């Protein structure tokens, strides 16, 4: 079967000043908690596997004829990869197959997984935590999972990397958005900066960064209101939030993450395109991969716009955020 590279780990995601994981490694200090933690981590890993599915359909390359390519095309389309990227991948594999270098289904499967993984991995996919403090801004279409992702990310940074995190509740628009983020802050064990409902999101973001710096926070994560990429006024507002953050701290936000719901179809490409035209998007968080959707649109986004997926969401609990692993993703795309 396909030889899997070492799965991407959390320590591959974050760039830290001491060059590696700043993990809380004093396992003996809290034996109960740690054991619990590892069990959960194991469960989680298998959950990722489950979410990303099994291996590519074994029968895909049983025979090699016109129909094989059609079946492959169908599988990719069904995974929301989109017609254009699908055509590109199929044409490439067909060419490789014709060149005679690939013998048998196994070699083809391996090559296909490679092709897909390479497409899905346009860059390194790090999140640089070296700036002090690091400011992360999270944006995306309504309901894609921004707030939940922030809760999980804050929890991870705090729990596993021992970072102090401050959240900025710059969604001042949606009903109870602030209460929602406040609840996540409590769960993750971090502080939160809020403003009154309907207030200017820019000033909340500014205040969050200011107070975060004042309190000596390591990471400041700014939540923003969900918006459709077609709403020019709201997109302009997002650009403004970013500018205001930069006013408080010149290089900030150091990381802008776009949440994309794995169930999204071809519109996801437009989302990524228009959001990244508004604010430079450094990475995608592909959420809700615990459902049956394969999230193939992320492949189109990575392939066509060069934006890497950095994290994936696999559930609604604190620990349901994982690093994106292009190889796992590639084999899961074509799983039955």
């Amino acid at each position, binding site marked *: 079967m396909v030889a899997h590279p070492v799965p991407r780990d959390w320590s591959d995601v974050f760039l830290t000043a001491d060059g590696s994981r700043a993990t809380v490694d004093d396992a003996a200090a809290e034996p109960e908690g740690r054991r619990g933690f590892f069990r959960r981590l194991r469960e989680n890993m298998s959950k990722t596997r489950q979410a990303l599915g099994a291996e590519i359909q074994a029968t895909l390359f049983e025979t090699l004829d016109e129909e094989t390519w059609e079946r492959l095309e169908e599988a990719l389309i069904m995974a929301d990869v989109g017609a254009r990227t699908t055509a590109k991948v199929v044409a490439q594999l067909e060419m490789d197959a014709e060149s005679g270098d690939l013998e048998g289904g196994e070699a083809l499967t391996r090559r296909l997984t490679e092709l897909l993984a390479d497409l899905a991995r346009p860059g390194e996919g790090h999140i640089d935590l070296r700036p002090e403090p690091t400011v992360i801004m999270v944006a995306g279409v309504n309901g894609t999972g921004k707030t939940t992702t922030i809760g999980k990310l804050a929890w991870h940074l705090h729990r596993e990397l021992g970072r102090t995190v401050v959240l900025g509740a710059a969604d001042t628009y949606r009903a109870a958005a602030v209460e*929602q983020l406040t609840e996540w802050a409590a769960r993750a064990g971090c502080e939160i900066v809020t403003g009154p409902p309907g207030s200017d999101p820019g000033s909340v973001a500014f205040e969050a960064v200011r107070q975060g710096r004042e309190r000596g926070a390591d990471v400041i994560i700014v939540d923003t209101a969900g918006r459709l990429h077609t709403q020019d006024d709201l997109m302009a507002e997002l650009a403004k939030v970013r500018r205001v953050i930069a006013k408080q701290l010149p290089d900030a936000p150091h990381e802008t993450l776009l949440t994309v719901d794995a*169930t*999204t179809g071809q519109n996801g490409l437009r989302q990524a395109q228009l959001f990244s035209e508004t604010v430079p998007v450094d990475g995608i968080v592909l959420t809700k991969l615990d459902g049956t959707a394969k999230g193939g649109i992320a492949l189109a986004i990575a392939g066509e716009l060069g934006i890497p997926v950095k994290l994936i969401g696999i559930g609604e609990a604190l620990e349901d955020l994982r690093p994106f692993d292009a190889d796992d993703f590639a084999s899961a795309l074509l799983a039955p």
Partner: protein
Amino acid sequence: MFDSLSEKLQATLADVRAHGTLTEDDIAKAMREIRLALLEADVNFKVVKSFTATVKERCLGADVVGALNPGQQVVKIVNEELAALMGGASMGLTFSPRPPTVVLMAGLQGSGKTTATAKLARWLKAEHGSSVALAACDVYRPAAVDQLRTVGAQVGADVYEQGTDRDPVDIARWALDQAKMAGKDVLIVDTSGRLHVDEKLMAELVDIRRAVKPTNVLLVVDAMTGQDAVNVAEQFSQAVDFDGVIMSKLDGDARGGAALSVKAVTGKPILFASVGEKLDQFERFHPDRMAQRILGMGDVLSLIEKAEKQYDEDEAKALERKLRRNEFTLEDFLNQLRQIRKMGPLTNLLGMMPGLAGQQLKNMKVDERELDRVQAIILSMTPEERRHPELIKGSRRLRIAKGSGTSVQHVNQLVKQFDTMRKVMRQLGKGKMPDLGALMRQGR
């Protein structure tokens, strides 16, 4: 770039005219375009397959020597088949003879249930004068109850909630009792978002359904959903046998192929469209228009209806008369412009026009400031000048430019464009289709 399917098909089949009938090869080419367009719109692969098979069948027998060109012929067939698949006239909710009518909302996480719940409440109040209560059964997502309480208050619906510690099934049952006691016409039960493969939560939804015996179960589906829409719809259909669908976030530029997929696999109608974050941005769903949107043919009907709402009939008749007699003045133009702008930002309206849908919207942005300028220029003219733009020469131009804070070029341009427009209208008035291309070139 994604041109309207209609244009593509006409280009693909341009040379068919010569031999009078569609050959297998022509049809194969046309089917490829149709298939791509539908996939681009996120219609499910399997649905696309069976759809193109049906269309192909009909095209094979089609005679192309009629009034329509072969491209148009195929478009017509596609359109008809798509409309048939999408369903006919729009439908509504079922009301219980013994109130309260209970509506159960279901859907994936983030699909827009809570917002849709409040919007539906508002809609029911506005259209049916119903007194509506909402039941807060999302006890899982943080602050979901707060959110429902807030939006409920905004639309004037009572919100029955018991915090997040009780079982959602009990809350639903309790809320129904409350609604009965309060003599409410409608109770809408908001539930947590859940994955169709989450057995525990799907079982809970079934229990809620059993507890409140809803008159309508509605599935909320995000218009941006891709191929997975069929899985979601099938599973929810099996579990709670929903009666209809609310498509959310249809104000974006997604083609919304999911609507077609869901209809095709479950046979359940799409009842409502949620078209914005504001609570009054909610409307009945029009299947026929959706068919055109999916094909990228715009939403001409919606546009017409929107226009109809704004114009009163007498005014329209008077206008028509003026057009016919070539008495249309800048004064009338100003009125028109104001009317159109009342319908909302022009970019929204453009999105409903054929050939401009989706992808192209971005490039076709209307500069509202340009329209402001046009209005300012006309307002700086004397009534006499508005009626006889040919008077506008020399010092008058300068005066108008100054008065409107624009330049002489701007004034010239407007007068010239208006002249062109009048020519178009005169031809239309004579019942002739003007050669728009030629006129545009003249106008420049």
